[in-house]
């Protein structure tokens, strides 16, 4: 699903400026700036320990930053003033014996003009499970309930911490639809994700976060740039880097054991070069894969480290 166009409103609903947060002297956030407009989905993409959850918690006022400010609709979130913010947190839960209907009624009771619990149950496909105990719900149903709870106060800002973590592809797609609906209603959405594909599908802009800093922030296509294809070649012997020299489309070659990875704006000349080289050398090409360049690739390129070298979860 392509990202929706940028919202026309020029007003930023969320303004994060120079945010710093340290735990035991170690910076989990190190000068983060972030602005989100109404009707825009901004994604935070990064490894475990990059600072995504800490940033979301500072935005929600759950953590007090050591420096910098968080403003939501020109209201200081750190002062705890009432603002229409909905949130779904990674480690938040509900009582085992609570039903979805009761949970929605409970949370709705704390707001002036809440959404109707029955309408939310319908919208999130939880009608049949309205009176089932929370403990008996599937992971997908629980996540849908948490998203419904996040929307119970008709929020203008929605903060979601890895909303599809642990879900099967069908449930993930369902949840994507619901998040896009929230955006269509004018919500400014800030979400963290571990999946580059999800960021690409949902987000108008993606911030690549690493070690508490935003390394780059732009639309997914701008982040990928013109060099949008990755060709992975496996052969014996491995192709020499020189065979791609002189090809203007190639942006970079990364030798690997038993092959190489080529970043290019056009895969056809690369494949032709490999074919010529294999015929000339009598080399055996065992595998050739062509795929679009992912946001994970961008993270790897920007940080210079492989994708899965997670540190502490949830920091």
């Amino acid at each position, binding site marked *: 699903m392509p990202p929706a166009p940028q919202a026309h409103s020029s007003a930023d609903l969320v303004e994060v400026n120079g945010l710093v947060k340290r735990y035991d002297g170690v910076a989990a956030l190190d000068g983060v700036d972030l602005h989100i407009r109404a009707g825009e989905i901004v994604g935070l993409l990064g490894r475990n320990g990059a600072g995504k959850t800490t940033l979301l918690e500072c935005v929600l006022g759950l953590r007090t930053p050591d420096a910098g400010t968080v403003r939501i609709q020109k209201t200081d979130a750190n002062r705890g003033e009432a603002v229409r913010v909905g949130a779904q947190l990674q*480690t938040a839960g509900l009582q085992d014996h609570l039903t979805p209907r009761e949970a929605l009624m409970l949370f*709705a009771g*704390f707001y002036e003009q809440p959404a109707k619990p029955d309408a939310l149950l319908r919208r999130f496909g939880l009608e049949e499970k309205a009176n089932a105990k929370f403990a008996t719900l599937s992971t997908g149903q629980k996540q849908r309930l948490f998203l419904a709870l996040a929307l119970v106060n008709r929020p203008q800002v929605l903060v979601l911490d890895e909303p599809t973590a642990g879900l099967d592809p069908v449930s993930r797609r369902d949840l994507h639809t619901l998040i896009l609906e929230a955006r269509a209603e004018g919500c400014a959405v800030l979400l963290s994700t571990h999946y580059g594909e999800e960021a690409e599908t949902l987000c108008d802009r993606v911030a690549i976060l690493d070690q508490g800093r935003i390394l780059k922030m732009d639309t997914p296509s701008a982040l990928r740039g013109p060099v949008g294809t990755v060709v992975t070649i496996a052969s014996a012997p491995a192709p020499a880097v020189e065979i791609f020299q002189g090809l203007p489309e190639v942006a970079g070659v990364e030798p690997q054991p038993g092959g190489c990875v080529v970043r290019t704006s056009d895969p056809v000349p690369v494949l032709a070069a490999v074919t010529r080289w294999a015929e000339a050398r009598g080399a055996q090409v065992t595998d050739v894969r062509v795929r679009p360049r992912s946001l994970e690739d961008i993270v790897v390129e920007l940080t210079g480290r492989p994708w899965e070298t997670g540190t502490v979860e949830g920091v």
Partner: protein
Amino acid sequence: MRGLWQHFLLSLRLNARNRHALAYGYLMPVFFLFAFASVFAADTPPLRGQMGQLLVITILGGACFGLPTTLVSERERGVWRRYRLLPIPVSRLVVSALLARLVIVVSAAALQIVLARLVYGTPWPEHGWLLAVGVLASMIAFLGLGLLVAALANDVPSVQGLGQAIFLPMILIGGVGVPLAALPVWAQRVAGFMPGRYAVEWLQAAWNPEFSAKQMMFDGVALVAIGVAAGIAGIKLFRWEPAARRPRGATKWALGSLAVWLAVGGLAWQAGRLRAVLPEAAAWETIAREQIERITYEDLPGDNEVVTRLAPPLEGSLDDPRAVAFAKGLQTWQPGRLANAGQSIRNLVALAAIADLCQDRCEAEMARLVFDRLRTHFDHEDLTRGLAWVILAPDEGTVVRQAPELGLSRHPPERAIRQRSILYAQKFLGRIEKKIDEAMPALGRTDRP
């Protein structure tokens, strides 16, 4: 407000849906009711003397186990993390949880009272308002402690550990499970430093025809002070994060709230409220005239012998300043002026025994001064019964082991004091009953013709 009401009702509903909570909150109190009824089966009317203990066990269990188990389990599941995002302070939700717990515990206590009435014919409380206020004061004390346990416990198993650390001492030596009168004196005194004793005292008063307003006032203030101190520490240390570490200074806050227990116990001690409680069956008032008349006075040591010396009636002023100081101190000596005349008499007789055992140079004069004090301070009926009680039930009541304020600083063994007290009580009673002629004092075994 609507949300808080919803939260309060939901807390009650979730408790009713949890089988473990139901078993612990309602079955256990009923089990204790039946257990107490079988242990104290001989009492009439049944369970009337144990209702205070039974209710405190229920309140203690619900507040110190039920509340923190729920709070910590919800914290571990991330429920309180989610609550933190609501547009109200978390403390209001804590209050809502406390009120729900109050309703749960009160309903379990009501079940005990009704079942005791229906099954055993236990009378209804004499003073309903006293019961209501007592339950409220006890709930304040124990909910405060429950909140502190919830704040200190890292997980649900830790709640069990911390809860038991409060529950078991109060059950065993705090006058809650084992009646105070059945405890040794040291345990009775220790119980004065625990809230359980005051809660039982108050709630039991609701079943007694008479009660002391002054005593109730002290009990109430003690319970509220203990509860508020623990509650403040509990709120200060409250953790909403599932994996949050125990806040810094947690030990100081916990010790600070325990200091209130010490303060309450110290005040009670100073005010003489920690006097020993006597078992009902051992009350000196029950000594009958026939029992007194059966006491014999043969074989007593002579008044001038090494053991149990007793000076002849004192005429004129005392010569020895030590005896003068003893005589003066005796007039205001607190253990000899207790509301319980029998225990006061036992304490005074013990002074003579201690002086004798320590071979004080004024032992004979001191014994005479004690005798004079007994005769002038107590009426004849009380004095004869009190002395007979010392003779017939030497192991009952408490015994003074030293009185440095009267110059008796050494402390002989309790057993020896009790044995020597029998002999002095016989000498005193024999004179009062005119079985021993003051002019011809008891002859020593060696003096006998």
